[in-house]
Each structure stands twice: as structure tokens, then as C-alpha cells.
């Protein structure tokens, strides 16, 4: 803690080139993506170059932070700043998902019934969408994307729910092991968590293949396909990131970066993992079951 009588002990880094690298990476990624979508030939390669620069930036930036941390340059106040940074970052992620959940609820609660003639929508329904009966799932009055079937909740999605919930238990066991100094138990249970994350992703990929190949359920299947794939897709992306983060943390544990009292890197990733877990529970409930 910084105290009035103590010397200046807050670590303020003196300049860093990584943010500049990150800016170039982000700019290249975004310009590349925009040109790719506009079918400009160099867009796609530029996008991948930008992503590579961003990965290089993360490697270097996190590396700097890890080295400084191992040298003992951080005090508990810096630790609190990192914790707040991670907490508010996760809050921003929650709000990002909230936008898509909001779209799902709005479509189900309002736009579909209105298209079906509820409330003030009677004449619109009569003149524009005559014969459209509101229901969920739906791909709208024009049946955009053609007839489709949905993924039953009580098959693979239930399995994936159990997998993610189990991974929440294993990472907690790993955390307790870390705090108790049980190194082998830590590595085993953290490794199990990575494995469960990978299995989840495998089943999710299987589910997508099934949807596209056999159920005709695609991103273009009207508002059902849109909300289904955007919600589960962004969630899957976050599980992917979380799994990579867990794997990195596994190697850092193996290298002995963490002590019983100082392992914020581990905790940050654990928080993130619980966040993707909770989002999945929301998805399972509102996308698959209801």
C-alpha cells in the first residue's frame, strides 16, 4: 500500500512500445477486414497480418508485465489496479452479450407477435404478411433461408452445459490446490479445465456442422438463425479465448510463476472462465430450452 510516510512505491512504467504495436495491429486488422468485406484483394491478407501483429503485441506486452511482476516491481496497489481492470473488462463483455440477448428477447417478445398481427400490427399483418402465424422458432414471414430444424436442448447442449459446469468445479479445485501449495493437483485440475474447454468447443463445432449440413439451420435462417449463431458464436469465440488463456496459465503454473499469495494472472483467467460459464447458462436457458 502507498502510505503517507512511505516512499513512492507505486510502479509507473516508463514508456512502452507495445501500445504503438497494438495500434498498428488493430488498424491493419480493421482496414483489412473492411476491405475484405468490400471484396478488395488485399483485404484478407491485411486482416491476417493485423491479427498476427496483435498476437505479437499481446505476447510482448504480457511478457513485459510478467517479467516486471516476477522481478517484484508490483505492490498490492498495482495488484488492485489489475483486478479492477479485469473486473470492469468482464463487465463490458457482459454488456456486449446483453445487446444480443436484448435482440433475442425483443424479437421473441415484440417483433414476431407484431408481425403476426398483435396489437397495432393487425393491418400490417393483413396487407404485408397475410397468413404469417407468429411462432418461435421462426425465420419470418418470408421464411428467409428456407425451412429448418433446431438443435434439441437435451442432447449436445445439455452435455455441453455439464462440461462447462464441471470445468467451473475443476478450476476451483485447481485454485484451492494453488493456494494450498499442491502443485501436482494444481497442474492436473487446471489441465482438466483446458481439456473440458476443448471438448466443449469440439461439441460446439459438431453442433454447427450438424446444423448446417442436416438441419438447414444457418446464420441466414431468419431471426432465429441470426440470434442463435451470433449468441452461440460469440460465446464460442470467448470459450476459445478462455481456453487459450487457461493453457497459457497452465504453462505459467508449470514454470512456477505463481505463489500461494500472488497469482492474479490465474485468478483473472478463472474469473473470465466463470464469466463464459454464466453466459452459457443464459444461452442454454434462453436459446436452447425456452
Amino acid at each position, binding site marked *: *500500500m*502507498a502510505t*503517507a510516510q512511505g*516512499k*513512492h*512505491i507505486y*510502479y*509507473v*512504467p*516508463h*514508456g*512502452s*512500445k507495445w*501500445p*504503438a504495436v497494438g495500434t498498428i495491429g*488493430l*488498424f491493419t486488422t*480493421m482496414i483489412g*477486414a*473492411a476491405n475484405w*468485406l468490400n471484396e478488395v484483394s488485399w483485404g484478407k491478407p491485411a486482416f491476417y497480418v493485423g491479427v498476427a501483429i496483435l498476437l505479437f503485441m499481446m505476447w510482448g506486452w504480457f511478457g513485459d508485465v*510478467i517479467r516486471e511482476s516476477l*522481478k*517484484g*516491481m*508490483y*505492490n*498490492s496497489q*498495482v495488484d*488492485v*489496479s*489489475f483486478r479492477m481492470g479485469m473486473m*470492469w*473488462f468482464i*463487465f*463490458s463483455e457482459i*454488456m*456486449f452479450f*446483453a*445487446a444480443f440477448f*436484448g*435482440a433475442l428477447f*425483443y424479437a421473441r417478445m*415484440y*417483433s*414476431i407477435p407484431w*408481425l403476426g398481427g398483435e396489437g*397495432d400490427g393487425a393491418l400490417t399483418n393483413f396487407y404485408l404478411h397475410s397468413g404469417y402465424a407468429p411462432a418461435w422458432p421462426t*425465420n*419470418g414471414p*418470408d421464411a*428467409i433461408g428456407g425451412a429448418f430444424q433446431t438443435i434439441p436442448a437435451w442432447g449436445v447442449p445439455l452435455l455441453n452445459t455439464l462440461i462447462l459446469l464441471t470445468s467451473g468445479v475443476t478450476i476451483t479445485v485447481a485454485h484451492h490446490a494453488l493456494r494450498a501449495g499442491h502443485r501436482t493437483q494444481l497442474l492436473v485440475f487446471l489441465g482438466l479445465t483446458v481439456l473440458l474447454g476443448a471438448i466443449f468447443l469440439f461439441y460446439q463445432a459438431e453442433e454447427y456442422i450438424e446444423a448446417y449440413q442436416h438441419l438447414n439451420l444457418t*446464420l441466414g435462417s*431468419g*431471426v432465429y*438463425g*441470426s440470434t442463435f449463431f*451470433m449468441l452461440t458464436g460469440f460465446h464460442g469465440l470467448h470459450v476459445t479465448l478462455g481456453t487459450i488463456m487457461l493453457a497459457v496459465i497452465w504453462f505459467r503454473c508449470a514454470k512456477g510463476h505463481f*505463489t500461494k499469495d*500472488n497469482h492474479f494472472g490465474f485468478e483473472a483467467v478463472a474469473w473470465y472462465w466463470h464469466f463464459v460459464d454464466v453466459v452459457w447458462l443464459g444461452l442454454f436457458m434462453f436459446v436452447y430450452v425456452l
Partner: protein
Amino acid sequence: MATHAATDHHHADHHDDHDHKPQGFMNRWVFTTNHKDIGTLYLVFAFIMFCIGGAMSGVIRAELMSPGLQFVEPYFFNQMTTVHALVMIFGGVMPAFVGLGNWMIPLQIGAPDMALPRMNNWSFWIMPFAFTVLLCTLFLPGGAPAGGWTLYPPLSLQGGSSVAFAIFAIHMMGISSIMGAINIIATILNMRAPGMDLLKMPLFVWTWLITAFLLIAVMPVLAGAVTMLLTDKFFGTSFFNAAGGGDPVMFQHIFWFFGHPEVYIMILPAFGVVSEIIPTFARKPLFGYQAMVYATASIAFLSFIVWAHHMFTVGMPLGGELFFMYATMMIAVPTGVKVFNWVSTMWKGSMTFETPMLWAIGFVILFTIGGFSGLMLAIVPADFQYHDTYFVVAHFHYVLVTGALFSIIAAVYFWWPKWTGKMYSEKWGKFHFWWTIVFVNLLFFPQHFLGLAGMPRRIPDYNVAFADWNMVSSIGAFGMLCTPVFMFLILWHSKKHGKTATAEVWEGAHGLEWTVPSPAPHHTFTEPPVIKASMLAHGDPTH
């Protein structure tokens, strides 16, 4: 990351380099982690963006000076209105406040720097590149976005190549804003000097804390909304397509769930600035300090439940219209608390009217006009008449120009001597103010009349019945276009020839920022200050 309490392994060179600035342009400005340099970068960037956005408004007002089409094609006119708004909101007002926050928050709470200095650098440097992505669309085939800054589908999706560029530019701005806001929250909650309790913080710090919360809560929602636009255009989704079961109105709901808190993101820090300046020049403590804090928090809370007042005419159930009308009107209560507290602070004060005080008083009066027209717009049946007319344009320019922008200018004059160690010319500062007061009202006040008479917004041509007031408004605009030049010259002259400023700068100034020398050294509060009652603007440190 492992951390070790109270270690002394930190850089030994860090103690005695109070004014040791990094050598070379790249080290000083591109790789910087210094909150003051990053604050300066933000402010310079915002100034450039204000000039670019101002030039676009010049095109708009030149075209509207008289009926008929004079200078530009209608489609280009639409690009100007769209990009003017995006540049002013995301490139001007928001970065200007982040710059002020960067400069002043660590100084006001006695912190050595921002909590996460490297991320602070990244937050800034994303911005020029984000606006490169946005502004380059002006030179693409099909031009810049032209569907209005609110990007309503289906119109916004009918643009040319610009759609993807605009969306990715907004993503970059959002990433920057979220990181900046996280940094500000972590700084305020974690970096305060001992004795700087939450309810002793300057109001500028309080308003920024709440603003940062709003930013983290709503910028991701905007990111989600524009991502849905992107997938609707390029990947065949049907979020905003009724044929697929979606609804274009759904975009408006999601957008304004971001958009209304965004309004307060642009005005709460302004409230903070004014709450610093008025007590200084009234030589009295701020009236109702705690009420000001709670009013700010109330406004922030209410800002989440009023969004649909931007879309009363789009078609909503009656219950929705009523709820959003009454919720909107409730915002007048905490806002009224603020206005009355500023006035009460001035009551029987030993007032002097230096340039920052003039801008602050101008803010109180003219922002209140914007608040009243906002109340008028909140009334559903009246809004059916006003919606999408110049009345709306007049309203939000009163709150954004004579509100947010006035407070930014006030803050720059107020803290400039602290930043540079030089006083500006009072005479020319006052000239800048009075010139602006005349022309800003010529520019925007007639737009109320035009709107009430039925002139629609976002059109390049209009009925001759509207000609006179449009002429007046355009004359006001041309006067306003001179003001950045004045400000630049005044500040340039001050930097070169200004009188040396004292540490306290203003006779009635209280707060930690006035206890450090002017100009503020490159590093301040490397050791936490011992706070005495006289240093605080609010509250007694012994309690």
C-alpha cells in the same frame, strides 16, 4: 501476475526525475505512459477533430444559407451531416473530456499517474487511426456514410463501401473508450492519496467516475448494435429485416440504449468542470456538494431508462410512450438540483468574471435553455410535432455546444496556466467568449423557430418560408467558424508571451492540483501528499 507488497525493487531512477521528460519525439509522445502527455495528446486530437467537424458544419450552413441547391449535391450534404456528428461526438467532445480527465484526475486525487499507464497510451493512439478509417470513406467510391450518425437500417445499410469502414471505425472508438473508462475508474477507486475520501473528491472526479461507468456499460452495446448491422449487410442475418422476423425498430432500441447514456457521457464531465470553476470565482464552497454527487448518480441511473424518447414517433405501445415520457421528465429533477446549486454557489459570493467563469456562467444559462427544450421534446404529443425538425437540432446543439463544448473551453482556460505555467490574455479570452456568445445564439436560437414552423432536419433544400432564419443561422455559423482560430491564437500567444502563472493561479482556487507548481512538473505526487483542509475544495480531511 505475482505481486509483492511494499517492495523496493522498483526503478531507482524514478525518485528524482520530477521534471525529467523522455528524450526524442517517439519516446515523448508515441511510447509515453505519462498522464499529462497523454492528456495533451487527447486535447490536441480533439481540437483537430473540432476543426474538421466544424468545417463540415460550414459546408452544411453554407448550403442552407438560402433555399435551393447552391454548393453541394444532396448526397454529399447527407455525408456532411452524418460525418459531422460522428466526428464531433466521438472525435471532439469525448476525447476532449478524456484528455481533461487524464490531465486533472491524478492531479486532483494526489496520484502519481493513471492506474494503468500503458493501456492509457493505447486508448489514445487508437483514436487517430479510428478516425483515419472513418474519414478515408470520404474519398471512397460511394463516399462517406450518409444515413445519419444514428445509422438506422435499412437506410444506413444502403451506403457503398463506407458501411464496413464506419462500423469498424466505431469498433475502434469503442475499444478506446472502454479502455479509457476502465483506467479512469481504477485510478479514482485505487489511486487516491490517503485522506482523499470519496466524498471529499472534487466534483470533476466524481462526474468522471460516473461517466466512466456509463461508458463501460453502453459502449459494448453500441458495438453489439453495429455488429448486427454488419452481419445483416454482409452475412445474411435478419436482425433488422422484418421479412426474416426481425425489426428495423429493434436497432433503434438497441442504439438508443447506448445513445441516451451517451448523451450524459458528454455532459456529466461538463457538470464537473462547471462545479470546479464556479466556486473558484465565487470564492465560496460549492453549494450542496453531496446533493451534486447524488444528483449526478441519479441522472446516470435515469439515463438507462429513457432511451425511447428518441423514437416516440416510430411506433410504440402507448404504455411505452407514457413510461419513457415520465422517466425522461424525472431527469429534470436532479438536473434542476444542479442548476440551482450552481446559482446558489454564486449567491452572495465575491464574484469576479475571469474568462473561465464567463464560460461557466454561459454554460449554466445556455445549457438550461437546452434542458428546457429537452423537456418540451419529452412530451409525447408535442414531440409528434417536433420530431425530426430543426427544433431537435437546436435542442441538442444547445446542450452539446453551449453545454459540453463551453465547459471544455472553460476548462482549458481554467487549467491552462497549470498546464503551461503561463497566463493567457484576459482581454482576448473575454473577447473569445463574447464573440462566441453572440454568434452561437445567432446560429442555434433561430433553429428553434425553424423547427416549430416545421422545417425538417437533414435536408439540403427547403421551403422559401424558412429562408430568413436560415440566413441568420448561417451568419451565426460563419462567426462561430472563427472561434477555433481565436482560441488557437490566444493559447499560442500565451505559450510564447504569457505572464508566468503562480502555483495557485486563481485567488479562490482550492484542490490538490493547485498545490503543485505551474507548470505542473512531468511527474507529480510520486509520493502521496499529506492532505490538509485548506487544500481541499470539499470536506474536511480530519473527518
